[in-house]
């Protein structure tokens, strides 16, 4: 039964994506629409060609790697800082009192609004991009860590004490594992947002990366290049999300199995 359901789903997925492709293809044949929409075959050709001939100064996969490495550095930093700060601001009362006001203030500033300040502080090089990605991801991760810790049930803490857990052990033995699913949720949302942030950062100032590809496409009015960039961006966004989900399945087997 389940197998048939998933087979039906995949058949429909193929039908639906093929239909999209056909509509896009036929639409781009039309003269009026053709000016707005590039031929999808051209777009795919452009992507394929990008692997052998450079777009701008670099090959397509080099652009991708540039963007990914920026995301990776900012994201990893954000994970470390976000998880530590999140725990500090939720498990420790004093930490909460100190950190929370700043958290509330910074939380309501959209991450991309940091771009100008980041450029003033760190220049237009790599550092300002790491900073934007960091700020984007760190707020999301912190929020989720804090929610995760706040959701630890007092009953479960009571059980742990009853079983002889010392106050010092409580964090590692109960709070941490309890908060892990929520933290993973945060990591997943953050990776998506970090990916969006690197695009924005690259579009503001950059000479490589996928964000640069679409912006360069815009300034030369090259729709094929813009759409090629968008397709690549979508694919990589999807891949990143799948990666985190796979990691979660590994690390939180107890939680996923129940679903």
């Amino acid at each position, binding site marked *: 039964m389940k197998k048939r359901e998933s087979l039906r789903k995949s058949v429909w997925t193929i039908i639906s994506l093929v239909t999209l492709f056909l509509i896009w293809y036929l639409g781009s044949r039309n003269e009026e629409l053709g000016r707005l929409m590039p031929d999808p075959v051209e777009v795919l050709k452009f992507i394929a060609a990008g692997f052998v001939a450079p777009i701008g100064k670099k090959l397509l996969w080099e652009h991708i790697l540039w963007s990914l490495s920026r995301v990776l550095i900012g994201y990893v930093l954000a994970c470390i800082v976000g998880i530590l700060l999140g725990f500090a601001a939720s498990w420790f009362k004093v930490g909460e009192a100190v950190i929370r006001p700043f958290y509330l203030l910074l939380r309501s500033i959209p991450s991309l609004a940091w771009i100008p300040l980041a450029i003033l502080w760190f220049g237009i090089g790599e550092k300002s991009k790491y900073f934007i990605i960091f700020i984007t991801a760190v707020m999301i991760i912190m929020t989720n860590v804090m929610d995760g810790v706040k959701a630890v049930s007092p*009953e*479960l803490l*009571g*059980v742990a*004490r*009853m*079983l*002889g*857990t*010392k106050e010092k*052990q409580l964090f590692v*033995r*109960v709070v941490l*594992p*309890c908060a*892990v699913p929520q933290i993973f949720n945060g990591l997943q949302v953050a990776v998506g947002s970090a990916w969006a942030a690197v695009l924005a950062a690259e579009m503001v100032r950059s000479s490589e990366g996928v964000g640069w590809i679409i912006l360069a496409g815009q300034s030369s009015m090259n729709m094929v290049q813009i759409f090629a960039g968008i397709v690549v961006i979508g694919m990589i966004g999807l891949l990143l999300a799948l990666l985190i989900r796979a990691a979660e399945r590994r690390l*939180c*087997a*107890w*939680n996923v*199995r*129940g679903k």
Partner: protein
Amino acid sequence: MSSMIEVKNVRKLFVNEEGEKNEVLKNVSFHVDKNEFVVIFGPGQCGKTTLLNIIAGLEEATDGEVLKMGETVSGPGPDRAVVFQDILLFPWLTVMQNVEYSMKVRGMDSRMRREEAGKYIDLVGLNGFEKAYPVQISGGMKQRVGIARAYCTKPDVMLMDEPFGALDAQTRYLMQDEVIRISSTEKRTVVFVTNNVEEAIYLADRIIIMTDCPSTVLKDIKIDLPRPRSYVDPEFLSLRKEISAMLNRKR
């Protein structure tokens, strides 16, 4: 010699956000001797769990105090293991890890605690499920894990809070026999809360009958029926009638 547990004039008052007061326990006093199986029985929703939590140290009494072997109880600890109504296993630990948890935090080495935990898993009949996570097993099995986990702390007292309340009737009977069997192999002091008369008579050496809100001790009855007991034994039935009548009169 002092009793294992001594509850002295315990009173509990809850005050909600609107400032309304709700007295759930009033002047509750009783004692529990070593290796005695005491059932706290009462019909209402009120007070019994709170009373058990106060003995466990999970909640504080508004007035009065609880002594364990002559010392005032001030917080939860492994000497008073609780089996909860809603079980409360650690969902991220396997059955084995849940059972051996208390020994792990005490710093016992892994080979010894495996062996010890294995013994209790055997005792509650969960062999073969050591590696399962709580979400993968049934309610009855979870409650067995809860019981094994409590025994593993080597408690002076076992506190059981309507442990079979959420189980179906069949499993419930099975678990009652199980508890009797286990406590005959592992002699321990047990305080068992229930709102089911039959369960109370079936299990208890002594029943402490509580009134409804605010709860207080109505009667303290010794149950001398020989074991194993039977639900259809005439003496059992007459005892049951007597307790029911007592409660009705009170109402």
